[in-house]
C-alpha cells in the first residue's frame, strides 16, 4: 500500500480554476470531475468519518453510486484531463473500497493514517509476553507428534493430540477477535465524545499490538493446519 498524501484543505479545478474542498469529487462551479491531485483519505473519499465500524451494505451502496459517477466508461468522449481524472478517481475508489471492506485492512489503514507505525501483516517474530507459555507447549507438542508420526503412530491418534494442543491457541485467537472488536468500538466512541488525543492514541497503540499478535497466531495456526494435512 502506498503512503497517501496528507489531506490539504483545498484542491483546484483544472478547468475553471475554482477551489473545492478535498472531499468533493466534482467542481462546485463547472461541475466537471476533479483531478485527483489533492485528496483526503479513503474514509473522507466515501464521505465517512474515520470510524472502524462500517455498515457494509451502506459502503457497497456508496461504492456503486461513486462508480456510476466516475467510471471511465462514461468519459470516453470527454477531454483528456477529465478522462485522466475519471481513471484516477475510479482507481482510488476501487483501492479504497477494497481496503475499507476488510475489517483488518481497515484498522491497519487507520493506524497508518493516524501515524501509528503499522506492521500488522508483518507478523511479529516474537510472541507477546502473555502467550509465551502456550506457544512453547504447542511447539513441543508439534515436535513430539512429528516424531511419533515417523515412528508409525496412527494418524487418527495424532490428530486428536494435535486438536487438543491447538485448543488453547484457538481460544486465544477468539479472545483476540473480541478484543479487537472492543477496541474498535472504543475508538469509535472516543471519536464521538471527543476524547483527549492521548486516550485515542492509547487505543490505537493497543490495536496495533493486538494486530501483531494476531498475525503471529495466524502463522502458528497455519503451521498446525499443514501438520494436520500431513497426517
Amino acid at each position, binding site marked *: 500500500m*502506498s503512503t497517501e498524501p496528507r489531506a490539504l484543505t483545498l484542491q483546484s479545478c483544472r478547468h475553471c480554476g475554482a477551489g473545492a474542498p478535498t472531499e468533493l469529487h466534482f467542481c462546485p462551479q463547472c461541475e466537471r470531475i476533479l483531478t485527483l491531485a489533492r485528496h483526503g483519505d479513503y474514509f473522507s473519499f466515501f464521505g465517512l468519518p474515520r470510524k472502524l465500524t462500517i455498515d457494509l451494505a451502506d459502503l*457497497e451502496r456508496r461504492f*456503486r453510486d461513486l*462508480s*456510476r459517477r466516475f*467510471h*471511465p*466508461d*462514461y468519459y*470516453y*468522449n470527454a477531454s483528456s484531463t477529465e478522462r485522466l481524472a475519471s*481513471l*484516477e478517481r*475510479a*482507481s*482510488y475508489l*476501487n*483501492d479504497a*473500497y*477494497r481496503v475499507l471492506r476488510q475489517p483488518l485492512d481497515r484498522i491497519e489503514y487507520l493506524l497508518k493514517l493516524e501515524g501509528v507505525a503499522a506492521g500488522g501483516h508483518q507478523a511479529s517474530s516474537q510472541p507477546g509476553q502473555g502467550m509465551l507459555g502456550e506457544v512453547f507447549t504447542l511447539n513441543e507438542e508439534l515436535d513430539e507428534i512429528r516424531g511419533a508420526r515417523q515412528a508409525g503412530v496412527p494418524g487418527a491418534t495424532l490428530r486428536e493430540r494435535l486438536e487438543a494442543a491447538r485448543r488453547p491457541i484457538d481460544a486465544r485467537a477468539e479472545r483476540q477477535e473480541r478484543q479487537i472488536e472492543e477496541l474498535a468500538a472504543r475508538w469509535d466512541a472516543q471519536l464521538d465524545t471527543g476524547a483527549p488525543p492521548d486516550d485515542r492514541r492509547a487505543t490505537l497503540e493497543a490495536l496495533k499490538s493486538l494486530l501483531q499478535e494476531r498475525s503471529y497466531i495466524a502463522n502458528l495456526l497455519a503451521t498446525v493446519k499443514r501438520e494436520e494435512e500431513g497426517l
Partner: protein
Amino acid sequence: MSQVVGIDLGTTNSLVACVEGGKPVVIRDGSGNGLLPSIVSLDAAGAVNVGREAQRRLLTDAHRTVYSVKRFMGRGPDDVRAEAEHFPFRVEGHGSGVVRIGLGERHFTPPEISAYILRELKRRAEEYFQERGEFDFEVDRAVITVPAYFNDAQRTATRDAGRIAGLEVLRIINEPTAASLAYGLDRREAGTIAVYDLGGGTFDISILRVEDGVFQVLSTNGDTHLGGDDIDQLLGAVIVGAMREAGHLPGAAQGGVAPAPELLQAIRLAAIQAKWDLSDRAEAEIRVHLPGSQGGPLFTRSIPREEFEALIRPVIERTLEPCRQALADAGLEPRQIDEVVLVGGSTRIPMVRRAVEQLFGRVPHVGLNPDEVVALGAAVQAGIMVSGNRDMLLLDVTPLSLGIETMGGAMSKIILRNSTIPASGTEMFTTFVDNQTAVDIHVLQGERELVNDNRSLARFKLRGIPPMPAGLPRIQVRFQIDANGILSVSARELRTGIEQAIEVKPSYGLTDEEVERMLLESFEHAEADVESRLLIEARNEAGTVLRATEKSLRNPDLAAAQNDLAPGELTAIESALGALRGVMDAGDRGAIEQKTQVLNDVTRHLAEVLMNRSVRAALSGKNIDGI
C-alpha cells in the same frame, strides 16, 4: 454519426453485433450466418480470403491458411513452439518477441491476421447499416471481447488488431462479463452469478455480483489454452491411429510420415463433426472425406459417446480447478451461487454440462445461444459507452497479479489479482551508485514467487534521474491498469518533482510504431484485398449459375424438350459447364467471370424452353377464366 459495434473475436468463430431499438442483435451475412469462421487464407495470387472461403481452402491449401490465431496473440515464439506443430501454417521467429506466421512469401503477426477478421466484420456491419438506410454507415468504433484470463500482452495485441483494422477500440471487455451483460438485460433482481465459458481455445470462469444494474466481478480464473481445439486434437489423434491401423495412411505405415496437411485438416473436420453429433446422439459416425474427392468417405468409424467422454474427461477436469479457485477467491461456497450461465460452443457437450451442474449443484442456464451471447454483451457495452446511459455498469477485475522483479529474481506484487479495475499501485525506487541517472524495471504478471515462472510484460528504463548520491533519489513509479485491463506506467522523482521519461520495451507486443506501420501496410494491401473480395463474389456468382445449369440438365422434362433445342445446343452447354468448373479454383477472376458469362448466355435458350414447358403444363386443362 458513424456507427459503433460489439465484436466477439473468437478462436473458432467471430461475430459482430449492434444495439437496435434498445436490444442487441447479431449482424448476419447475406446467407443469414452470424458466425464468421476466424480463418484467414492467402491464395496463390496473393489475395487474402476470410471466413467461409478461407475455411474451404483449409482442405486445398492448408499451409497458406490460418485458423485459431487467437492462440498466438500476445505470445512469444518460445511459448508456442510445441503447439505450433499442430498447425499447417509456418510459425516463425525465435526466442522472445513477436510470433510471425508465414504464408507463402508474406509474413504476418497475429494482430495482423486478426485485423483481417475484424475488417471483414466491419465490412459486414457497414453493409448492414447501409441497407438499413443509415446516412453515415461507417463503422469506426468497437468494443472487442477477450477471455477474462488474457494477460496484458494478449489484451494489447487485441487492441492493436483493432487499430490495424481501422477501428477505435472503445473498450476491451472480458467474454464472461459480456455474456452476463447480455443475460442481465432482462433481469434486475440482485444475485450472484457464475459464468462458465468454454470456447474454441480458451476457458474462463467469472463470479459476479449483480445489483442495481452494476455488474461487479468478484473473481475470475481460467486457462487461455484450453478449449474445443484440445478436444478436436484428442479425437483427431484417435482417428489418425485408427486410419493407420486400417492401412489408410500407407506413407505413414512405411516410413512414419505424417499425413499431408490437407488430409490432417480433413481428419480435424471429421473429428469436429463427430463431436457435434455426439452432443445430440449416443453414437456418431466419423467420416473422413479425402480433400477434393467426390466419392464416399475414405474412412469411417463409429464412436459411442462413452468412448468420447472417456477421451475428453481430462480436458473437462482441467476446467474444474479454476472454478474452485474463483469461488475461493470470491469467498463463496458453490451453494451461494444463484445462477450458472454457460457460454461458448464447447458447453453444448453434455459431459461439460453435467460437470458444471455437479460442481455448483444447480442446473446451468442456457437461455441465450452460447455462440452469440458474448457478441450481444459487447454490443450492450458499446451502447452504454456511446449513449452515456448509466443504468448499467460493468466493474471487472484484473485476472493476474502485477509486480516487479526484485533482487534475487523474486517477484514483488504491486496490484493483486481480482482487484477491481481500473486499479493502481505505486512503488518507490532509488539508485545504487552515485550519480546514477537511469534505473531498469522489469514488470511481470502472474501468481508465482519467482520471476521466471511469471509472464514478463515489459522492461522499462527510467531515465533522466538528477545526479545525486546513491540512495538519495526517491522515484515513485505508478502502475496503472485501465478499464481494459491494460497497464501503463509513469514515474516521478519526488525530491525534484521531475516527471521521468520511460522507455518501454514490451516483451511480447508490438511497439506503437509497428502498429502504425501495419496500419499503413494494410492500406497498401487493400487493393489486393478488394480483389480478393471480388474474386469471392465472382465465385459465388459462378456457383449460382453452375447449380442452376446442373438442375436444368437433371430436369425430367429435358428429354421431351430436346425437339425445341438446336442441334448441338446441349453439347455446347456441357462444354461451357466444364470450362467454368475448370477455372473455379484458380485465382483468375477474369476467367471465372468470362466463363460464367458464356455459360449464362449459352443456357438462356434452354431455360426459356423449360420455362415455357412448365407454364404450358401448368395451364393445360384450364380455360382462360381459370387463370
